[in-house]
Every structure is written in C-alpha cells, then in structure tokens.
C-alpha cells in the first residue's frame, strides 16, 4: 500500500520557498530529490514536469498544486513538498495562488503506483484540516506527522 509519508524524504520538505515563479519553484523542488538517489537526470525530470505544466495546470484549487511526471529519469517514486506564504501562480481553475505544493516524480514503468499516489495525495489535500496543518507545520517532522495522521 502506498504511503505518502514514506515517499516524502525530510530533506525534500521546504517550509519556505525562495522562488515565486512556477518554473523556478519546480526547479527548487527537484533539487533535494537528487540527493535521494531516486532521480537519474535532473534536467530530464524538470523537462517532463514542465511539459505537463505547459499543457495543463496541475493547480487543483484551494491553494494546492501537484506538479508531477512519470519518466525514465526517475528510479523510484519520490515526493517533495514546499510551502509558499505569498503563493505561486499554478493557473488553477479557481484562480487562487498555490500555497501548498507537492511534486511527484515517478518511474515510467510504475503507472499504477503513480496514479494511486496522485489520487491519495489529492484526497488528503481536499481536507481543510490537512491544508491548515501543513500551512502551520514548524518542521519537516510535523509535516510528516500531519500526513501520517490523515492518510
């Protein structure tokens, strides 16, 4: 069973983004994933994520965005999380900027796990208490704990 909390390394939890522009934010989120060994090629992963973003927004509304890609440049499914006080424009259908951003990188061959991860995360993030909790979390451990509590 896919556990979001187990796919999210503490080192990939950014409580304060330095970028405000969508493409820079994606770069910032991919960086810590390189150290996990799950990502083979940084540029290929970024390119796969941007290709999707250029076609359609991954902002799912309510201040949440989930940029994602399934690509051969990733060896195992891994997540990164970032929070933005100012918000980032992910062109969400509800027009609101995204304050909670999860990036999902998955191997090309792991479609089922990728879809389940996206679905589980989307369900979690529709809960207001999860979004509020993630917005207030003071440390990576607290972020993980909030996800564990609700998944």
């Amino acid at each position: 069973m896919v556990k979001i909390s187990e796919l999210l390394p503490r080192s990939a939890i950014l409580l304060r983004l330095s970028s405000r522009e969508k493409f820079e934010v994606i770069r910032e989120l991919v960086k810590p994933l390189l150290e996990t060994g799950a990502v083979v090629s940084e540029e290929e992963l970024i390119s796969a994520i941007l290709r999707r973003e250029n076609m359609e927004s991954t902002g799912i509304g309510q201040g949440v965005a989930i940029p994602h890609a399934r690509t051969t440049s990733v060896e195992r499914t891994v997540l990164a999380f970032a929070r933005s006080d100012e918000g980032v424009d992910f062109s969400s259908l509800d027009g609101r900027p995204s304050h909670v951003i999860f990036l999902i990188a998955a191997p090309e061959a792991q479609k089922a796990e990728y879809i389940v991860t996206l679905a589980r995360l989307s369900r979690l993030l529709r809960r207001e208490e999860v979004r509020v909790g993630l917005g207030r979390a003071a440390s990576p451990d607290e972020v993980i704990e909030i996800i564990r509590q609700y998944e």
Partner: protein
Amino acid sequence: MAEHPLVERLLLYVEPGQDMARATGWALQAARFFGCRVFAASVLAPTPAGNSKDAEEQAWESLYEIEDDAFRQDTRVSLLLEQGDPLPRVLSLAANYAVELAVLSADTRLSTAELVRKITCPVVFVR
C-alpha cells in the same frame, strides 16, 4: 484547425460503468479532432455516512488515469471532483465552463431524459 473551432471545451462525465472506458476513448479522440480542451469531471453523491476514503480515492484514480492517457496523446485535460447531487452538478459544470459538447457513457446512472432537456450543449452517449 478552423479559426473558430466548433468545439473548444468538452465535458467528460466520469463515473463507474462498463461503457466508461469507451466513452473516455471517444472523448479524447474527439478532443484531438477538434483540438479542444477536456474537462473530466466526477461527482461524489452524498451518502448518509459521508463519502468513504475509498470512494473519493477511486474517483481521483479514474480522473488521473484519464489525465495520464490524455497527456500521452497531447490532449489538454482539467480534472474536477465535485460533491453533491450528480445531475445538477453536471448541468452546472456544463454551464459554468461553457462547454460545447458533453460526453457520457451510455450506461450512465444519470436521468438521460432530464439531462438532455436541461443541459446547455449537445450530448453524446457512448456505448
């Protein structure tokens, strides 16, 4: 593509059913033909006990499956998961997103007569 395409926005109503895969395939093919954007929407009907985690997650899985297929076919798709009475929600989505075509599976659980009478655009039922 024509200067003023016939269909710029297409609504695909996603629900469990035998004909759903064919309806999805038809909608994505139509979207490629028209060069239009797809709004793939699912509606969770209220239940006395509330929606289970499983029902909501299953709905998201169906939507993300469609998104993944669409992406690989260079088709633009937006995902919508709504809560409420399905028929009014579908009618409201069609109006709010100003879609020019709605695609449903032929074995839809919605009242087709009422849908066709009230919706603001042509409807295709796919078997």
